[in-house]
């Protein structure tokens, strides 16, 4: 079974309050100079052989449901 990773991140121009909160907490803990943006990682197990068509379906799923492309960018890659 193949595993496909979908990373979803807020677009750079979109405010990321969660990332800002984590950045602030890191600073308070003494981790200077670390700026965080927080996104989501989806691990998708694909039944059967991972053909280009199947990968295309994962891409379609990412665009339709996993990410909201109004505010988020996504990246699809096969885990080796």
């Amino acid at each position, binding site marked *: 079974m193949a595993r496909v990773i979908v990373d979803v991140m807020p677009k750079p121009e*979109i*405010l990321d*309050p*969660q990332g800002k*909160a984590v950045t602030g907490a890191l600073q308070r803990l003494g981790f200077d100079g670390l700026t965080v943006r927080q996104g989501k990682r989806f691990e998708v197990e694909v039944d059967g052989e991972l053909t280009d068509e199947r990968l295309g379906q994962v891409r379609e799923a990412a665009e339709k*449901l*996993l990410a*909201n492309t*109004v*505010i988020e960018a996504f990246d699809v890659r096969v885990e080796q």
Partner: protein
Amino acid sequence: MSRIGVVTFPGSLDDHDARRAVTLAGHEPVALWHAHESLQGVDAVILPGGFSYGDYLRCGAIARFSPIMTEVIQGAEQGLPVLGICNGFQVLCESHLLPGALIRNDVRTFVCRDQPLRVDSVDTVWTNAFTPGQQITIVLKNGEGGYVADPDTITRLEGENQVVFRYQQDNPNGSLNDIAGITNARGNVVGLMPHPEHNMEQLTSPSLDGRAFFTSLERFLGAAIVA
């Protein structure tokens, strides 16, 4: 008397209040279940507040694909009046019936207060009983109410008079251009973060400004029948 449907998703909270508001406004509330595929011939639909599907993935993202939404989207595209309140607004954005998206409040906390608003567009099914520029107060309560959209969309919304409500005094959540509610080009679909269904009764509300939403709908439906 009109029949107004209120959709209940798993995790909806304000569906009962919305149905009660419909009754207080003198109409017949019709409970619609997310898993059903019929709108039962209602004259209008309200998507209520709450946390549909636990807000998993993104607010409104999973509710948008529930069976009843296929009917709501189809109806809305043909002119059916649809009002999305809070989570309902998020569902409308996820459904692409309204442009843009709602993200976590910039203050990073849940905000609950009586919110002053200005009515900027009365050219909608749900706001024609207000006067342009009218100052109203409606309950606001959400964690993810920051309205965002790309600059072209914001320009279009402003240019086409599709910004319906704007936050007054201070912006509670970082929404672009203080946007609290918007409408589609046709004016039959309105989404807003504040909760007009909580502003229907003297006992529990600082204002009765929620009532005009229903007066507006009555006017529209009345005019539609005459026409």
